[in-house]
């Protein structure tokens, strides 16, 4: 596993893996979308239940991508490993996109079901804070010219943001919220009817594969960009 920390070995290992992940994501998305619209409407929520099939995977991946960013930041900060820094940087944009989608689709689900687009309850607010951590991370990296200093400052911010993940996850248990409690990962098993569980799990797998494909592609791109910078510097010295 740690052998993959070598950028050259990582590049050769992920070269065949990346297109496979893109293909898995595409197939799962097609099947997931089909099953999402083939499922019947919920007896209480009607067709708005179909928003769940894009909202829950987006929320899960928003959290998962930040976990990847935070753990990579830890390795970048402690071991100063360039691949860990590339992995943290590559997780930021897709993670921010998934979190933004969780907020937008949640709002579109909240209006017909709760009668409001937004409330400042613990779950919604902590997810908004998660989105702001992503924006802060990307803004910090972009605002410092020295790449090493930018990487170190962003890694500290990335680590601090990890504190927010359990707050997001357990906010519905720790406080009274308008948002419903966990219905998938909870003691006693899922409370979802199997007719909704199957499309939801497939959509979650599709989003997961899509995130991995985007993440690996972005890490490979970051390694290539750094190689380009090194070559440019070398050629400028030789010229």
């Amino acid at each position, binding site marked *: 596993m740690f052998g993959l920390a070598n950028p050259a070995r990582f590049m050769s290992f992920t070269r065949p893996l990346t297109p496979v992940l893109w293909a898995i994501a595409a197939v799962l998305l097609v099947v997931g979308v089909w099953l999402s*619209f083939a499922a019947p409407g919920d007896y209480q929520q009607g067709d708005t239940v179909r*928003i769940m099939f894009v909202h829950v995977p987006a929320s899960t991946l928003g959290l998962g991508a930040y976990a990847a960013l935070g753990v990579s930041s830890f390795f970048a900060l402690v071991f100063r490993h360039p691949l860990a820094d590339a992995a943290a940087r590559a997780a930021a944009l897709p993670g921010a996109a998934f979190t933004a*989608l969780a907020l937008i689709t949640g709002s*579109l689900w909240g209006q017909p079901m709760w009668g409001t687009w937004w409330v400042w309850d613990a779950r919604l607010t902590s997810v908004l804070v998660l989105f702001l951590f992503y924006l802060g991370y990307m803004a910090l990296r972009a605002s410092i010219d020295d790449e090493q200093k930018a990487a170190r400052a962003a890694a500290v911010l990335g680590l601090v943001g990890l504190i927010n993940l359990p707050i997001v996850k357990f906010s519905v248990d720790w406080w009274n919220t308008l948002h419903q409690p966990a219905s998938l990962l909870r003691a006693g098993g899922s409370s979802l009817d199997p007719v909704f569980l199957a499309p939801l799990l497939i959509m979650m797998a599709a989003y997961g594969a899509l995130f991995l494909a*985007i993440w690996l*592609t972005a890490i490979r791109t970051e390694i*290539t960009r750094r190689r380009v910078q090194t070559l440019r510097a070398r*050629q400028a010295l*030789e010229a």
Partner: protein
Amino acid sequence: MPDLDMSPYAAFVWPAWGISALVLGAVTAGAVSASRKWKAELKRLEDDGEAMAQAAQSATGDQK
């Protein structure tokens, strides 16, 4: 068969799916296009480097 009649919630269901498709499509396109751009730039620099090395080699050969 999928039922695409979302009434009376079409104004909420379709935007949720549409925005999801749009954002994920944009992130995917961005990742793929950045990958192609830097791969092409690396290839160009490597080709330039090889050309420079060959030129240097032939120049030292001429001197001999």
